[in-house]
């Protein structure tokens, strides 16, 4: 049977918008990712058959009720009902409650879901993929496309992660207070990884339906709703908004990247920037400092300046120092060195860059920044070599065009 387009659209919309909420509710009862996903899939297929006769008044409650019954069927069919008697009883009880009119509001279990998807016992890339699949409602194909992976490879990654959750006993819970801050940081890091993947446009200039930046911002807004009044959650959201506000100015008409210093600041999204700055003020007022608030403050300082010349580079150096206390990484040291050069310490900056070279030998932005700074200090030949290194390491055409143009502009 061919469902009418309106019905398919209605189902797609629920599948996308409410997937996280429905899966989380099913997980709370089943404690089994694969079963929860399969049961929801069964329910969506049942909707294709039933909804043409009339879309239910509460589509979400309908799907949850059907998914619960499908889960019961699946447990029975698999002959696992003996060791899952308790789960079956709980599902049946939930089904009774749901049948009452009006059906009760579905409890929001998405916080448990995101903590499980971002569990540190999973590989970082799997955390990202699971979060996009379970909470973002992206298909395996969409996630694979965004990360330039084959759909099959991404599917295997997701299955592996779900198997580990089940077999290793990764719990479907909000972490204990003693683990809270570390685990929350893991969730925030996953969302920021998603944002960065979208920001670097590593999809090689290919247009994909899903914008990972929007996806990450959506996830952070959801998290901000689930964990209100948390300074680091607000910090992350602020960081992404103030960064994303500059998106229209990042590429020129030919699709080449434009450096922050050369961007037309009139193209920045002022509304988004203002929201980001306001969030940062709110976060800082909570007096619970953390790395995402510091990164947000760095992004905000750029966002508030009218030009590179009026940017407060000394303040930026101090912020990077503060960030080093949380993340003593070579990348943070690189950013600090660049800010130091802008603040007038070009020679000290080049020395700092030499000190971290071994660690960042394969990091494209390192060579790009070094090339830029060598050119400024008049070391043309060395600058040219550094640009060549950066171009060789670059993953996207936009970036390569940008670096090539900079290199061609040398010694003129």
């Amino acid at each position: 049977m061919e469902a009418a387009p309106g019905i398919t659209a209605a189902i797609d919309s629920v599948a996308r918008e409410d997937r996280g909420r429905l899966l989380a509710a099913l997980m709370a009862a089943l404690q089994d990712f694969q079963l929860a996903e399969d049961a929801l899939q069964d329910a969506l297929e049942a909707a294709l058959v039933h909804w043409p006769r009339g879309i239910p008044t509460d589509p979400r409650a309908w799907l949850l009720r059907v998914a619960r019954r499908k889960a019961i069927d699946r447990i029975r069919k698999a002959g696992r009902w003996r060791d899952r008697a308790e789960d079956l009883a709980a599902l049946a009880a939930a089904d009774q409650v749901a049948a009452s009119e009006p059906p009760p509001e579905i409890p929001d279990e998405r916080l448990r879901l995101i903590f499980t998807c971002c569990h540190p016992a999973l590989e970082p890339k799997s955390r990202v993929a699971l979060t996009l699949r379970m909470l973002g409602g992206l298909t395996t194909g969409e996630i694979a496309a965004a990360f330039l992976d084959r759909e099959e490879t991404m599917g295997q990654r997701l299955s592996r992660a779900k198997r580990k959750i089940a077999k290793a006993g990764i719990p479907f819970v909000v972490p204990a207070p003693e683990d809270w801050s570390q685990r929350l940081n893991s969730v925030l890091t996953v969302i920021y990884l998603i944002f960065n993947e979208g920001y670097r446009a590593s999809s090689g200039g290919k247009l994909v339906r899903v914008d990972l930046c929007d996806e990450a911002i959506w996830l952070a807004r959801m998290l901000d709703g689930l964990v209100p009044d948390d300074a680091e959650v607000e910090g992350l959201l602020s960081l992404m908004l103030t960064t994303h506000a500059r998106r229209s100015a990042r590429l020129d008409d030919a699709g080449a990247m434009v450096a922050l210093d050369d961007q037309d600041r009139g193209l920045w999204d002022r509304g988004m920037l203002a929201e980001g700055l306001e969030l940062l003020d709110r976060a800082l007022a909570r007096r619970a400092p953390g790395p995402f608030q510091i990164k947000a403050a760095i992004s905000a300082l750029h966002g508030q300046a009218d030009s590179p010349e009026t940017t407060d580079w000394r303040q930026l150096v101090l912020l990077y120092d503060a960030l080093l206390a949380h993340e003593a990484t070579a990348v943070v040291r690189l950013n600090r060195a660049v800010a130091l050069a802008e603040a007038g310490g070009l020679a000290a900056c080049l020395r700092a860059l030499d000190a971290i070279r071994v660690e960042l030998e394969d990091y494209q932005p390192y060579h790009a920044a070094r090339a830029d700074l060598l050119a400024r200090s008049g070391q043309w030949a060395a600058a040219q070599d550094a640009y060549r290194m950066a171009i060789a390491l670059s993953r996207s055409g936009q970036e390569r065009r940008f670096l090539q143009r900079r290199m061609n502009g040398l010694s003129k």
Partner: protein
Amino acid sequence: MQYIALIYGDPDLTPKHGTPEAEEMMKGYFMANEVYKRDGVFIAGEPLQGVETATSLRIRSGKTETMDGPFAETKERLGGFYIFDCDDLDAALRYAALIPGAKYGTVEVRPILQLG
């Protein structure tokens, strides 16, 4: 669920017997054991003799071959283990983090496959 915590370490990096660091480490193990027993999660836990005492064997074509040494020659060696009975991986990781060996080497936590 039951979990095994396998304690790996490089003997060169582990405190030598008789040093204050070694004494500190022993105190750490003592305290960890107290917590495991208090919380009722302790099933077993023992240190092992060094790898120089290890013997490996395999059966090929019905014949037993015996070899001197551990399964794999690595810098970090299996030095001991614990078995915990606790709710989930979060709890197992919390108990494993009390093992002093984690400061000098690596503790691998794996669920035990329950048969039947």
